[in-house]
């Protein structure tokens, strides 16, 4: 590309914005609103997923052993369980540890039950098993029940039965929201760009008739689209960033039991993603919309 053409293209881009300021404002707002919605739905999805993961990771299987099990047998049992597929971790909680733990909880609630026990440890040895996938907790628990030396296996049966459909639902809703808003914003933005180009179709036709190449016509539109997209993306990521920062702090303070994702790395990734998306949608949308008007 010749330098003069480059100068022409930049001048043309900003002339066009200056001469159609309201069309430009409309484009920026369309891109901004679409990306704000998209940004929020991404954070919604991230949190839905995080919430589901948090709930699921709290699922444990408690394996209580027979009183007669020796420490050595306990070790073998641990190995056997660890060797089962889909078991992610097994930790031994010895009866001594169990007693200490119990003592701590009791003391914090001002209870002296431990002293009443008079040095007798009523707790059996226990194994805490975590599954790699919450779906198989039930299955694993049932199989451990059959191992020798196992007295009792406890897991949150009702909890799992309710939680799993819920987390699955939560994730699908999150993905659905993102996909829906991504499609909506692309449609919205391309309609806006089409309108913008349509209003200038005569101009494009004339340019072609006096011998402008498609590339020469395309560049100013392309850069304008990219620029407006960038501005829209910038406004969107600022809006989403400030709002999410405030909202997540607020939720954390008032509804502490809700796990809110406050990952700075992810935060900046999403925001810069919005910025780049704005620019890319502006540029690509323009290129695609232009094609039908260049056929003269």
């Amino acid at each position, binding site marked *: 590309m010749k330098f*003069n053409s480059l100068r022409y293209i930049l001048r043309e881009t900003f002339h066009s914005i200056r001469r159609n300021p309201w069309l430009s404002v409309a484009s920026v707002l369309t891109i901004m609103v679409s990306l704000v919605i998209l940004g929020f739905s991404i954070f919604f999805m991230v949190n839905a997923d995080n919430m589901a993961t948090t709930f699921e990771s709290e699922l444990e299987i408690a394996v209580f052993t027979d009183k007669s099990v020796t420490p050595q047998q306990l070790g073998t049992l641990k190995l056997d369980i660890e060797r089962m597929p889909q078991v992610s971790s097994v930790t031994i909680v010895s009866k001594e540890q169990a007693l200490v733990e119990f003592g701590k909880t009791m003391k914090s609630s001002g209870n002296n039950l431990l002293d009443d026990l008079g040095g007798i440890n009523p707790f059996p040895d226990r194994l805490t098993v975590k599954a790699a996938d919450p779906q198989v907790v039930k299955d694993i628990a049932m199989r451990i029940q059959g191992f020798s030396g196992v007295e009792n296996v406890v897991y949150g049966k009702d909890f799992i039965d309710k939680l799993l459909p819920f987390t699955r639902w939560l994730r699908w809703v999150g993905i659905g929201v993102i996909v829906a808003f991504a499609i909506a914003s692309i449609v919205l933005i391309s309609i806006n760009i089409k309108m913008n180009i349509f209003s200038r179709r005569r101009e494009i036709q004339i340019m072609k*008739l006096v011998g*402008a190449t*498609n590339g020469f016509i395309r560049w100013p539109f392309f850069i304008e689209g990219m620029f407006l997209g960038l501005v829209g993306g910038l406004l969107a990521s600022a809006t989403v960033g400030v709002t999410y920062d405030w909202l997540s702090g607020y939720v954390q303070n008032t509804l502490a039991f809700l796990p809110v994702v406050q990952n700075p790395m992810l935060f900046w990734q999403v925001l810069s993603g919005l910025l780049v998306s704005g620019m890319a949608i502006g540029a690509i949308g323009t290129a695609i919309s232009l094609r039908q008007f260049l056929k003269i």
Partner: protein
Amino acid sequence: MIQLSNVSKIYPNGARALSDINLKIGKGEFVFLVGPSGAGKSTLIRLLYREEKPTRGQVLVNNRNLVRMREHEVPYLRRGIGVIFQDFKLLPNKTVEENTAFALEVLGMSTREVQTRSRAALELVGLGGKGKSFPHQLSGGEQQRACVARAIINSPGLLVADEPTGNLDPENAWGIMDLLYNINKRGTTVIMATHAKDIVDQMQKRVVAIEGGRLVRDEEKGAYGYEV
């Protein structure tokens, strides 16, 4: 330089605009294209810079076959042809000077040279003081002259004009004819569709008449040949 062989044009809506036209125009000629309204004059002109393609037949311009020409070569064809459009085709949101400059900017010419040349071209058509006006601020005749300025600005080898005096009073009309005459003198081929009987009769140039899409007359030093 221009050759149409068995050219027919039927528009997508079924309108038959040209039927079996054979026409040869040499380099440096001045040709009037006459005929009643709806005869197909504009259509024939639009074939020459490939705004339209013929339905049948071949169109050769500068020994290039426009029917077979590839899409990306078309801009370079058009740069060698100045077109004075019947409806002017000025960009409404550009000043007159920017409009004329545009034909040079697509060539990648420097801003300074573009400016000098477009001022000179506007001066030539008598629009010296109107460079900063927008098309809607001009009269029909002035817009027409702006269109002429754009068409001649890069000294094209072929100039096609579709009723370039249609909106002008006789004085301005002759001004334009003077311009076309001089451009033709310098070697540019000029093809002009017109209804202006007195102009055709006085200029004593080749006259090609079309009626109902058919070529009905082709005379050297002809006359308009219709009653007005």
